[in-house]
Structure formats: structure tokens, C-alpha cells
């Protein structure tokens, strides 16, 4: 495998979604023809029936996916979702998403007063939140998942507990979103 084929393999590995030849060429700073050639080399390595991961061409481009040979083991591995305790940052991000959904990452950062990349990434990985389109400013929006509801034993989003029991200043006016943003901005000073 030459360096370009290796690079294409790494890019396909990293991306959760299919990548077009055009985007691959742009990322690797080579022509589309060279990408097509690298993909042909990769295809030899990922011939079906030989590997646990296969190269697929789907609408929108190329992607790596697991071979059905591993399905039973994958089900067993994932049978019980891992539920390590949430860190404070993760709990805050999840609370913001669950009460305000859909909500964008910049909004989460404004409310928390700090960038929240790592916590949001972990929640996505664990399947507690998912993407839900884009805001009119182009930021990715997030919402909670069905898995989230099951792991919190909620019959639906309307079963979320009323936060007013923990509200430090219930006399404050305004919608929850507006108040959270205001508090976040004051904390950030």
C-alpha cells in the first residue's frame, strides 16, 4: 500500500459518514484520478470475505463498515450499553440538550461558559445524544436519543423532572433557555 492509499484508508476509518472522491482528493491534496487509483488498491486489501471490515461504495461516496461475520459478537459486546458515571461536564451538557433540544454546540458552550467539545463528543459516542439537523447559522443541532430515555428510565421527554425544585432563583423572569444563557454569560463575566 502506498502512502496515498494509507491516507485514504485512515480518512475512511475516521469518518462516520461516506466520503466522496472529491472530498478525499481535497483532503489529501491530490487529483480525483489519484484517489480512484488509491481506492482500487484499498479494495484489494478489503476484499469481502477476508477482513472484518469491508470497503463499501454507497450513495455519497466510500465508507468502511463491519462484515456480517462479526454481527453475533458485536451484539454480545454491545448487549449491555456501558454506563460509567457521568462527569459534571457530561451531566451539564446532557441536561442542556435534554431540556432545550434541539440545541447547538455554541449554545451549550455559552450556557456552560466553557467549550464543551470533549463532553459532547463522549455523549455522542455513547449514543445519549445525536445530531438533529442544522441551525439557521449552520451549527449542528443536537437532541437526545431513545437510548437516553431508556438509560434514564424516562417514558418520554415530558417525563423529565421539573428543574424548578433545584432552581436557585425561582423569582427570575423568563424562559428556561433565556435564563440559562443569561446565567452563563454572567458566569463567563
Amino acid at each position, binding site marked *: 500500500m502506498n502512502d496515498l492509499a494509507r491516507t485514504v484508508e*485512515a480518512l475512511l*476509518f*475516521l*469518518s*462516520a459518514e461516506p466520503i466522496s472522491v472529491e472530498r478525499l482528493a481535497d483532503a489529501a491534496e491530490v487529483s480525483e484520478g489519484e484517489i480512484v487509483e488509491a481506492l482500487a488498491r484499498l479494495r484489494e486489501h478489503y476484499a469481502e470475505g477476508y477482513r472484518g471490515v469491508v470497503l463499501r461504495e454507497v450513495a455519497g461516496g466510500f465508507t468502511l*463498515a*463491519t462484515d456480517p461475520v462479526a454481527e453475533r459478537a*458485536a*451484539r454480545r459486546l*454491545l*448487549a*449491555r*450499553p456501558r*454506563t460509567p458515571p*457521568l462527569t*459534571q461536564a457530561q*451531566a*451539564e451538557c*446532557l*441536561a*442542556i440538550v*435534554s*431540556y432545550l433540544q434541539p440545541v447547538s454546540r455554541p449554545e451549550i458552550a455559552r*450556557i*456552560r461558559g466553557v467549550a464543551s467539545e470533549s463532553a459532547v*463528543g463522549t455523549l*455522542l*459516542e455513547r*449514543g445519549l445524544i*445525536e445530531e438533529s439537523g442544522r441551525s439557521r447559522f449552520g451549527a449542528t443541532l443536537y437532541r437526545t436519543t*431513545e*437510548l437516553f430515555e*431508556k*438509560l*434514564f*428510565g*424516562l417514558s418520554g421527554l415530558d*417525563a*423529565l*423532572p*421539573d*428543574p424548578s*425544585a*433545584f*432552581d*436557585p*432563583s425561582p423569582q*427570575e423572569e423568563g424562559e*428556561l433557555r433565556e*435564563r*440559562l444563557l*443569561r*446565567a*452563563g454569560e*454572567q*458566569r463567563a463575566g
Partner: protein
Amino acid sequence: MSLATLDLDLEVFHGPFDLLLTLVLREEVDLLEVDLAEVVLAYVEHLERAGELDLEAATEFLVLIAALLELKSRLMLPQEEDEGLDLEPREAAEELLARMLEYHRYKAAAEHLHERLAAEHGHRYRSAPLPPELRRISIEAAEAAYDPELLARAIGDLLRIPPPLDLTHVRRPAVSVDQRLRHLRDLLATRNRFSFDDAVKGADRLTEAVTLFALLELYKAGEAKWEQEVPFGPITVVPTQ
């Protein structure tokens, strides 16, 4: 901005701070002769020129200057007061050494972590949600594991606005230097000479301190001077003739 770029121009030393430190430790420069306040001032100027506070460099500087100050203050104490110290000089040096070594250890460990992280540069991990068919499985098998109250509690924490600093407990001083200046001038005019104790009889500590400050003002203005025969003995204030 690193400490290596902090250039000093002192009476006994001219050059970078790092070098000064080395020379002090090698005893090629006598710490007793180094004006550490000058070093601090040079550093503050250095910060001002840079226009921003580099917390890391500041941290390093503070640790080093604190160690130097501690060492120097021990060096400056007169010999006969050693008995009164909590630490003998040997112990003091050992304690200082232990602290410097402990910090040195984690500073070097931090360097190691920097290198490790740099060596890992280029190894990225995949972070992708599960494919839909497997996502289903984990939802089916999922059981309640978290308390929903933690979400409401987190919202409560996020709604908290830090209270503005409460300054009501800080009383304005009940005495002013002007008041105490007037008091001292009255005493000088009526009694000619008087003891400082008399001047602050029945007063609280704050008033005592302000009175001492007023006395210094009088001295500066050439109106009064004082006599004290032994350390901690009575102070007698007399007008300047």
C-alpha cells in the same frame, strides 16, 4: 514569554534571571546582596512590556522567587535569634530542598507528558456512533442506569448566577490619618514630649496603626521625631526644633 528572556540590571548582577539563579545556587553571587524586590519589579515591567500575563511563566517565576525569598529571609536573620525559630538552618535548607526537588520532579514529569503527547501526534481514534442496526440492539438491551434527577440538578447549577462580591462587612476605617495627625499635633502643642503609648491609650489596633502612620507623616514633614532606647521599648515623641 519565558523566564530565560527576563533580563536583569541589578547592582550586583547584570544578565538573565536563569543565570542569576544558577549563580546564587553556585554561590558566585551572594544572595544577601541581591535586591529581590528589584527582581520582582523587573519581572513586572517585563510582563507589562509583553502586554499579557503568561500564567505558566508567571508560575515558574513565583515558585523560584518564593524559594529565593525564603532562603534570603533565613540568611538575614541574626544568629542569636536562631533559638527562636521553628526550624534550624539545616532543617530550613532541607525543607527548601525537599520542596524544590518535589516541584522539580513534577516539572520534569510534565515535560515527559509534553513529549508523549507530541509523539502521539497523528494517532487519531475513531469516534462514530454505532451503525443503525446495532444501535437498535443496545436500545433493546438498555436498562435504566441513571437518575433523571441529576439532569434537573445540573440545570439548577447552571441557573446559578454568582453573587456580586459582598463588601458590606468591610467597614470604612473609623479613623482617618487627618484625625490622628490633628491628635498628635495637639499633644505636641500641649505637652511638648509624650509617649506613643499615651497617644494611643485605649485605642483599637486600627487606630494604633493609623496613629503610627500619622507619626511617620509628621516626621516626613519635619514636625516631630522620636526616640526609642531599646527594641520594643517605649517610644517617646518630641518636636523637631
